């Protein structure tokens, strides 16, 4: 009990992972964080990137989250993953789109909207790439 804790990873659309682990590594807003048992209560926003959980038998599993929150309690770590990729610009664009639909103005989408969407997709692709690279590195070592 002393050297393991429960980790839950949930997104709005599904429960992704739940189990007893020894360590969780995630990329927080201010850099990567490794959570070991007995960590002080912490609440942080997550950046898009990999979340690594290490089990007590040394095995590990990788997940990709496109942002979200991590809540650390003495015996439970909860990761609230975003199901959707979000950049603030993209949110703005989505809101604008909903307004436009309300006005029934189905004109051609502005190039700006396409641009922000592409930018957000790019950011996510880079983050996904990072996850894959980390996985590769692990595979090379092991």
């Amino acid at each position, binding site marked *: 009990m002393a050297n393991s804790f429960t980790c*839950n990873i*949930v*997104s*709005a*659309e*599904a*429960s992704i992972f739940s189990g007893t682990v020894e360590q969780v590594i995630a990329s*927080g*807003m*201010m850099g990567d964080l490794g959570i070991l048992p007995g960590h*002080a*209560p*912490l*609440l*942080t*926003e997550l950046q898009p990137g990999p979340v690594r959980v290490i089990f007590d038998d040394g095995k590990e599993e990788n997940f990709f989250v496109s942002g979200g*929150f991590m*809540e*650390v*309690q003495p015996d*439970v770590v*909860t990761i*609230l993953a*975003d*199901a*959707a*990729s*979000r950049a603030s610009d993209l*949110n*703005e*664009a*989505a*809101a*604008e*789109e*909903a*307004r436009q*639909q*309300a006005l029934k103005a189905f004109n051609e989408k502005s190039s700006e909207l396409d641009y922000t969407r592409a930018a957000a997709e790019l950011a996510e692709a880079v983050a996904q790439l990072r996850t894959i690279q980390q996985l590769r590195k692990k595979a090379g070592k092991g």
Partner: protein
Amino acid sequence: MAAAKEIRTQIGSIKNTQKITSAMEMVAASKMRKAQERMKASQPYAKQIRNVVSHLADANPEYKHDYMVERNEVKRVGYIVVSTDRGLCGGLNHNLFKAVVKDAKAWHQEGAGLDFCALGAKASGFFRNYGGNLVAAKSGLGEAPSVEGLIGSIKVMLEAYDEGNIDRLYVVHNEFINTMTQKPVVRQLLPLSTDIGEDAEQDDENARPGSWDYLYEPDAKALLDSLMIRFIESQVYQAVVENVACEQAARMIAMKSATDNAGNLIDDLEMVYNKARQAAITQEISEIVGGAAAV
């Protein structure tokens, strides 16, 4: 025999319709099962985020988020109306709109303005006729709605709340009670009702003795701000997913009764058809007998 032939074509066409409705019933049944699973899958997130928000609110009593403060005067009310994209699901949407109109009328009498956000094609269609002030709309969410598709519409409503254009926000959707029963509900989203904290505490009273303060990254205020938005989004998403399950259940029931009705109609028509056939045969025989007697 002309009447008999007509009846026979009628029976044929009803049989074809029956085939379609019974196929739709089966499709709806399988989709309903999936929708129910999706409904269950979204519950852990909603529960966890509810816990985190209530913890955060408890730990920081000095910072009251705007979404948690009851406003003294209600000048405008916003509704997020969750409907289906397609019809043929009985009175599901109709009952829902009736509930919205009833609630909206009560506010209207108190002198409050009304803003609507329509999710689903049926709601946009309804408000086009009803004449409400539609500020946002989204349709074509499909059977597996994504949070991503909802962000825009929710943001419009939250911005309106932030700017003070609306002082209260409701979400209206169908509640899935069981396959046979769906009930329209009008639920208050903003300001958050105070029981949110109590609910969560009851769940985990044993697991979390006492309260503590977190370390925050970046800081409590910013975190609470973005958590609140996620919380509202997850609430709306849940409403949408539940409504999809309701839609499929209602369609299944509607199609089942349509199939049954078609069966009854066919039985009745077959009776009429047989009677007409018999009458024609009797007439023919009596004509032959009459003819033979004359000779």
